[in-house]
């Protein structure tokens, strides 16, 4: 146990004040005023008008208010900050404030939306889908829905702002310290250099701490500047679970034109995502949804529409996989539906349509790298004994049909397969438009210091960077250290998301070390080298027209999931998960396996039990506090094969389970239940209904 690991709640300052938010009780309306109780001495209420700079958070071309000043957009929106010396008194004060408002009709529906709700839109056509549909032997349609998911990261959101001479220091758990700095400087109306961000322990975040910490840091900073005292704001778990961003709900409608031999001729896809009242990552999510809608398959004629729709609900945000995971769930389920319609084997259909080298993506881009689709699927099929089990469970399914009391015979079993990829790095224009750097110095005493603002979710990532540098420069591991991460001492290395720590930061460290190696015996010590990364995608990818090469790196995976359903309580139990992964050069076999196994557990949770349900535009406190997180005792055996890596470049793999496992799981449940299901989370009630209809 490392006692140096300090979370925000472990930090305090002399004379520190606490802050709590006054939140909107109204989902949509006009703010008329706030009636505060009589404020005790040294307590204050800070409103939008007290903000010294801009009252808005800018991110990726989107803006949202820090504190609502006239329009109320969702229940729980921050409209004032209560500040005072006692945390519980401040929380009570915030709760006792009466918000006056004029209520308008809120909008909670997203599948059927008006043009006013549209936040971002994508449309693209490849080939001639209309003609293809006219000549199709079969037309296969399906609607697929994926639910919201709570991040349940280690510590709830919070921030501590304190003064250090002429600077304002912010301690906050964030994946992107320089975004926090930019936001706070803008909100305070000061230069970015006047704000120093010190990232504190973050733990496993699943992209839940990408942009929202900037907003929370702005609350703390404004409160500190107005009260002239250090201020800490720390959400309770219930508050965090109710109002912070979640994985968004998505509905995807597929329509496929299929030839007489089962070949996919054309695919129409319409994806709608509920981004809540605001989401800075709406563009990224909708891009990925549209791209993923075609899966990892060839299709000559395509029509895609994607809509990011605003509702009067708390903001949605990125979750591991952004939109790709939802899109892969839909297309993989549709692949099964197509195979069933034409009487094809689901594996053979996938293998005959899977992308390969020199194939074109839906966006028209040529795939430059080999895609080991056949090898990955063969590997996972062999490991899991898929073919024997699938045939056996099909036989059982057919023999059950029409028999009374058939389910009393024993548990129902099924097995499913899926194939997906992970796109490394960001897509959207503006998200990664900056230049991101890592700096290293080889000191006179032979030690190496690495300076980066990248935030490690685990200690093993930092150990990996040290090991990479020590191997390249032939140093002892102990001779390599990471400089303290604070924005006045390290360069901006960009957001720690979408496996960038592996694909970008590790590469920059390698480049720095390679440059030092060249200079080592030529120049005097200390030698400092800085290497920068600029996203090459802006030139190759047109997000609006969905054209070009979306990702510089792809990781690939095939998954098989076997389930058993108890015929009495209908609860699905996962008997085993098999993954075959092309993740490029695996830097740490143990960490890679651990990351995938953990991802499998949480993707099963998303598919079967994790349920974040909105009621009247808000998450219920009791329901969120009893959120049904997947627990270790339910972890199935997971077998992973990395044999088919086809690249010497390290690639991200952490999101692959979310893209592969849910679809394979639901296919397995569908086989067991005898009816195709297309919605997650899938629970006992849905399975019971399916069995009743069988």
């Amino acid at each position: 146990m490392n006692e140096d690991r300090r979370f925000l709640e472990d930090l305090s300052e002399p004379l520190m004040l606490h802050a709590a938010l006054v939140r909107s009780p109204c989902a949509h309306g006009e703010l008329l005023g706030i009636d505060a109780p009589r404020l005790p001495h040294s307590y204050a209420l800070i409103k939008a008008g007290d903000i010294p700079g801009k009252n808005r958070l800018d991110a990726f071309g989107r803006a949202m208010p820090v504190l609502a000043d006239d329009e109320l957009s969702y229940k729980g929106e921050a409209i004032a900050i209560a500040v005072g010396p006692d945390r519980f008194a401040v929380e009570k004060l915030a709760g006792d404030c009466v918000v006056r408002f004029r209520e308008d009709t809120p909008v909670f529906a997203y599948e059927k939306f008006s043009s006013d709700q549209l936040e971002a839109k994508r449309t693209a056509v490849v080939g001639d889908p209309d003609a293809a549909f006219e000549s199709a032997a079969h037309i296969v349609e399906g609607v697929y829905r994926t639910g919201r998911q709570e991040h349940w990261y280690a510590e709830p959101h919070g921030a501590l702002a304190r003064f250090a001479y002429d600077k304002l220091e912010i301690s906050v758990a964030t994946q992107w310290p320089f975004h926090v700095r930019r936001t706070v400087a803008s909100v305070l109306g000061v230069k970015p250099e006047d704000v120093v961000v010190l990232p504190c322990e973050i733990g496993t975040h699943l992209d839940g701490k990408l942009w929202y910490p900037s907003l929370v840091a702005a609350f703390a900073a404004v409160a500190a500047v107005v009260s002239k005292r250090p201020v800490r704001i720390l959400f309770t778990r219930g508050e965090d679970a109710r109002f912070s961003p979640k994985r968004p709900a998505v509905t995807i409608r597929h329509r496929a034109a299929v030839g007489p031999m089962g070949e996919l001729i054309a695919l129409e896809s319409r994806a709608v995502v509920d981004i809540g009242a605001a989401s800075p990552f709406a563009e990224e999510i909708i891009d990925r949804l549209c791209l993923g809608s075609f899966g990892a398959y060839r299709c000559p004629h395509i029509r895609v529409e994607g809509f990011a729709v605003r509702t009067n609900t708390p903001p949605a945000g990125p979750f591991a996989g952004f939109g790709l995971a939802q899109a892969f769930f839909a297309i993989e389920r549709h692949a099964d539906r197509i195979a069933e319609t034409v009487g094809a084997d689901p594996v053979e259909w996938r293998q005959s349509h899977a992308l390969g080298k020199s194939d074109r993506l839906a966006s028209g881009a040529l795939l430059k790298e080999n895609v080991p689709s056949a090898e990955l699927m063969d590997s996972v099929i062999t490991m899991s004994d898929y073919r024997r089990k699938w045939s056996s469970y099909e036989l059982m399914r057919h023999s059950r049909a029409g028999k009374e009391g058939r389910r009393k015979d024993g548990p129902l079993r099924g097995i499913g397969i899926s194939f997906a990829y992970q796109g490394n790095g960001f897509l959207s224009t503006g998200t990664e438009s900056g230049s991101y750097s890592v700096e290293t110095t080889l000191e006179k005493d032979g030690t190496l210091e690495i300076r980066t603002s990248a935030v490690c979710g685990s200690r093993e990532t930092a150990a990996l960077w040290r090991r990479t540098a020590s191997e390249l420069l032939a140093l002892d591991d102990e001779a390599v250290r990471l400089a303290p991460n604070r924005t006045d001492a390290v360069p901006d290395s960009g957001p720690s998301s979408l496996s960038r720590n592996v694909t970008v930061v590790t590469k920059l460290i390698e480049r720095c070390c390679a440059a030092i190696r060249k200079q080592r015996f030529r120049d005097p010590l200390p030698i400092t080298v800085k290497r920068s990364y600029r996203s090459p995608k802006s030139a190759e990818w047109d997000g609006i027209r969905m054209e070009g090469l979306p990702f510089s790196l792809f990781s690939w995976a095939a998954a098989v999931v076997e389930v058993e359903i108890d015929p009495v309580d209908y609860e699905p139990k996962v008997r085993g998960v098999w993954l075959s992964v092309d993740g490029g050069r695996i830097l740490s076999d143990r960490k890679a396996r651990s990351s995938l196994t953990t991802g499998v557990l949480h993707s099963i949770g998303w598919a079967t039990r994790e349920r974040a349900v909105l009621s009247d535009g808000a998450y219920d406190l009791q329901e969120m506090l009893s959120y049904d997180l997947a627990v270790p005792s339910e972890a199935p055996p997971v077998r992973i094969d990395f044999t088919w890596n086809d690249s010497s470049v390290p690639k991200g793999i952490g999101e692959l389970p979310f893209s592969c496992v849910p679809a394979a799981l639901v296919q397995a449940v569908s086989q067991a239940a005898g009816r195709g299901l297309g919605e997650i989370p899938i629970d006992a009630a849905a399975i019971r209904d399916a069995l009743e209809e069988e």
Partner: protein
Amino acid sequence: MTVGFILNGEDVVVQAGADRRLLDILRDTFKLFGSKASCRVGRCGSCSVILNGKLVPSCLIPAFSVRGGEVITIEGFMQTDEYLDIAAGFARSGVEMCGFCESAKILATEALLDKSPRPTREEILSAFDGVLCRCTDPRTLAEGVAAASDARQRRLYGRAP
């Protein structure tokens, strides 16, 4: 009211109102930050401590109810040989934790090994169902607890199992 109890092997006395919970006095009065405050409704397990030999969520325990009892937090437990067994087992198996749930997982391991010195895989994984966190790979965690059990057997009986 005045509450006296044994905290990490030392007699302590603290003034605690009726609404104060054990977690509050551990963090606020004794500055023992190993037990984390998160849900405050006994759901997440981050605040777990050992009270009179049992693993409990300290956010649900009224401070006055520990009068005369014995409380062990991670800070106290780290001074024991039992902690070294667990640390060795976890390190050997590469158990990686986020830090927020770390004290709860270590104390949950101790509670398990105290009750069942050679636990099965099912017993091990069930022991962590009360600690809600997304960080640790269950397979590695099970291996780590088994390795901790081995380390303890070697220390106590001088031989590998």
